[in-house]
């Protein structure tokens, strides 16, 4: 630790690498926090957690008792046990008592990505509501044809304000906040849509996972989906380049270099952005020429055999993109987690050592900022996997019932998890200096005989 700081002082290590090194070391020994806890006002299982994307300070939770609450992650409301335990009480909550509040369980609650003035909740009462944070009033209400499983807003959208909703219905509807109407209806899934996710690299690309086991990628500017992920289309050949890349990520000191190395891998290449597309197509063709050509040819309406491809046996319960938008993680009710190369649409065959996953509910994965770890709720525990090798790094046990969602706060390297036992738990890196812990008097060996 001290040596690293000295190196940094001497300018031997770059700031970014120093930062990532510290971060990864902190993440490595993440554990249940004893000095920080959220006082959950929910009286039902917690289905969704999200920290706002602008300040990284306000945690939004949605729960089965039709309520949603906001917590301040940074500042505690009161302290207990002589300032040892910081209790974070909710700043406000909205529930059934609220005017126009949800009637049934809130399945999904997300922040408006641009600021914290709005948030969106989707509920089993077939409604998606947009709330004003300051007045805690509903400002917009979308009535959908079935239970809402998942809502999503694109974090990098600059030209649209669409809420993607996955519902019981086979169609994905995009609710436009600007107009208050459904802007799009995307049909293609053969069963309810469990989860939707916007691409982290392209504001027009939407990814959806359905109960029919298919993961579809949509370009919302065009009709139909342009890619259905097939679990049988594998890409073992691409794996060797993946591993060096990650090791490079860790070791290499220049972020710029690595990004330049990867740029040709990005899916952006294949899709829109016409200026880029031309330049990069040859490189991707050179790697997997046949596949790309097929895709290109088929684009608007896919071949029916390709259209029937499945990504999981059973429903797809969760989707998560790495921060650079290159890879996609999906979890299914077949208790598998798969890592997809979005570029080629291939299953990378990484074997994640899962035990069991919840099957009936949408779960929420969380990836670290540098795409090294993924946190997956595995029944009543949360497991941290190495994304590239699938190894289990740690198993976080603390919940007494199933865990539904987790959110990684990369700013503080904290993990928040919510489960059926109505608790929101905070997992933090263990404190640096043990002197801070006044464990002195009470918690000691006490041998009376």
């Amino acid at each position: 630790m001290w040596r690293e700081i000295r190196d940094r002082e001497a300018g031997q290590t770059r700031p970014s690498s120093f930062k990532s090194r510290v971060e990864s070391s902190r993440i490595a020994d993440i554990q249940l926090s004893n000095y920080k806890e959220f006082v959950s006002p929910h009286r039902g299982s917690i289905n969704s957690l999200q920290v706002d994307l602008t300040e990284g300070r306000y945690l939004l939770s949605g729960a089965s008792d039709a309520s949603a609450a906001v917590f301040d992650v940074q500042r505690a409301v009161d302290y207990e046990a002589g300032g040892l335990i910081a209790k974070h009480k909710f700043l406000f909550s909205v529930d059934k008592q609220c005017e126009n509040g949800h009637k049934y369980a809130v399945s999904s609650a997300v922040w408006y990505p641009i600021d914290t003035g709005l948030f969106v909740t989707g509920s089993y009462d077939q409604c998606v509501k947009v709330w004003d944070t300051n007045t805690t009033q509903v400002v917009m209400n979308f009535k959908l044809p079935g239970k809402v499983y998942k809502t999503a807003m694109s974090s990098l959208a600059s030209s649209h304000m669409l809420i993607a909703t996955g519902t019981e219905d086979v169609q994905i509807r995009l609710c436009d906040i600007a107009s208050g109407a459904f802007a799009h209806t995307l049909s293609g899934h053969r069963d309810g849509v469990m989860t939707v996710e916007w691409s982290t690299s392209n504001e027009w690309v939407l990814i959806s996972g359905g109960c029919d086991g298919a993961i579809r990628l949509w370009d919302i500017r065009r009709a139909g989906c342009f890619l259905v992920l097939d679990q049988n289309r594998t890409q073992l050949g691409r794996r060797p380049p993946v591993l060096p890349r990650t090791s490079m990520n860790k070791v290499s000191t220049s972020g710029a270099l690595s990004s330049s190395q990867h740029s040709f891998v990005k899916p952006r290449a294949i899709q829109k952005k016409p200026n880029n597309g031309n330049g990069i197509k040859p490189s991707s063709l050179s790697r997997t020429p046949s596949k790309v050509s097929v895709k290109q040819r088929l684009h608007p309406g896919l071949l029916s055999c390709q259209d029937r491809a499945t990504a999981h046996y059973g429903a797809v319960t969760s989707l998560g993109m790495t921060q650079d938008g290159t890879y996609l993680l999906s979890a299914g009710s077949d208790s598998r987690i798969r890592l997809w190369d979005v570029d080629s649409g291939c299953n990378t065959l990484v074997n994640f050592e899962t035990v069991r996953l919840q099957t009936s509910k949408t779960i929420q994965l969380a990836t670290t900022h540098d795409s090294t770890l993924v946190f997956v709720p595995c029944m009543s525990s949360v497991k941290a996997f190495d994304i590239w090798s699938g190894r289990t790094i740690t198993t976080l046990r603390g919940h007494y019932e199933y865990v539904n969602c987790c959110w990684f706060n990369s700013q503080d390297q904290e993990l928040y998890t919510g489960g059926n036992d109505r608790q929101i738990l905070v997992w933090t890196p263990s404190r640096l200096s043990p002197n801070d812990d006044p464990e002195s008097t009470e918690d000691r060996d006490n041998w009376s005989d």
Partner: protein
Amino acid sequence: MEESGGKVRALIEKATNSTASHVDSRLLKAIKTVVRYSDSEVRLAAQTLMDLMKRDHSQIRYLSLIIIDELFMRSKLFRTLIVENLDQLLSLSVGFRRNLPLPAPPAVASVLRTKAIEFLEKWNNSFGIHYRKIRLGFDYLKNILRFQFPNLQANAARIQQERRERAMKSMEILRNKFEMLTKNFTLIKEEIHSTVDEINECLEIARSKEENLPFGTLDDEDFDEFRPSELQQLRIDSLKEAEKIRENSENKVVFDALRELYKLLVTKHLVSLKEWISVLIRVEMADNSSRDSMLKDFIDIRNSLLSVKKKCMESGCSLPETEKHLKDEEEEDFWEEGKVEPSEIDSSSTPAEPSKKSLASTSEEVKIHTHKHNYENPKIKKPLVGQHGSTDSNPLRSKLMAEAPIMNWGSYLDNWGPKRDVMANYRGLELESHWGRVDYDAVIPAEKIAELSLPAMLYKEEQVEIQPCNAPLRKGGLCQRRDLKVCPFHGVIVPRDGEGNPLHQSNVPNNTNNQNTMVDDINFNLGDNLVEKLAEKAVKNVRNRDQEESRKRKFDKRLEKRAKLAKIREHNESVLRHAALASTSHSAVSGEEAEAASEEGHLFREKKETLASMLRKKVTSKDRLSKRLLNTRASDATIRQLTIGEDATYREAFPNQW
């Protein structure tokens, strides 16, 4: 190191392998000492205990939980190790997961659950701050699963608080009293002083009067040697007696005053003094100087009072005695309620007539006692005959009481005796607003009333004594089943001796004969019961004797009958022997069975109680019964027995027909 490593494991396993409800304290101590000095031992112990908690036996889990608690409260390392898997531990000990209920012996399992909840609360109270997982577990069980925690600490705190409040309240009262005392202190002192002074004066007066009287001179010391000591003692006593002041007509007034003052002194001042002193001792004030001085004063006063009292006692022996006497009487009268006499007695026994007093008082007392008796009688209703004390005073009444029947209580007793018509609308109820006419003079005739209030009598069945089967059981003792004819396990009921062996060779007609005798017995019993009833009414004591006699008679009669039947049997046996050769008798069969069963039973019982035996389901009497009854062989045998029995009754009716 490795050796000792095995040691803690062995110790724990040994400690948990027991059926007792607690861990052997020696083993526990050994475990603690082993674990104390090495971290690896702690790790091993935690591992072993968690493994044991996974065993499918509540007893093992219970004992390991106790050991876990012991170590948990002591070792920090152990705590951290256990807390890691706290959810697992809780699910194994509390059994809150529906798919993982607690294992077999249900009694132990419930104890395990309560204990685990109790421990969790304790851990949470003492270490919850340092371990988030303990807090979480506690919270989960308490707020989400709504387990009832014993809440020991809060209860203790509440009790403490209550006690403190009570103490505060009593302190407040004491302080108030003390303040009152400080106000009234001089007053009290003066009052007491004046009383004491008066007593002293009275004594002075009495004494001075007494001195005028001539004393018999006593100058016979020279005779002393010759007299026996007893006589001497007697004489000294009489002399002393003479020295005492005698009450006579002259100083009567003085004595009266003295007596009254004395009474005042004893009943009021001394008692109140005692109270004040206790208050002073108990009270806690900011400055104790005034209190101490007061206390000192009070003690002085008390001592002076006591000395005065003693003087009074010395002055007249009769004084305290009469006082006491009077007091006694007064008290007695006071507590007798509803009497007219007390005031009279009081007036008669007041010190106005002290000369007669001693005699009068005794006679009065006697009178009072007799009165008391007379009054007692009607008050306490003696239910029946046999009360000696009161009988002589009211012979007619006791006679009537003896004759009166004992009635059960009921509403018909309200209308006992009077044969009157009853007004129907005579209750003062508001009837005006009812529709229709109201007949205020409506009357329910007396017959109707009598009819309505007919006492209900319940038919009581006469208790028939059914003889127990008395067949020997394989676990010892005799079968206590009472069946009329046939015991389902031991066949036809046969008279048996003390060890359960049949008195006679059990043969078929033989049995039926016995049945008949039994029925006769029962009949006889009924008659006897009637006699007994009469006897009960007449004299209580006779009853027991009679019962014994009747029993004896019964027995005699039975023997007689047996003897009579024996002859017929003798004849019949010879006939039946042939029949017996054809078919096996039931008694033989059942005998075999019993033997076989008893053998296997012994094997079962001889085993010591082990953990495995706790798991085994207890064989209840119901199981045994069903096993026995559903046994085809047994049921067949019973059926056969019964049909043969029917045959036999026919044969009994015509005994000479074969």
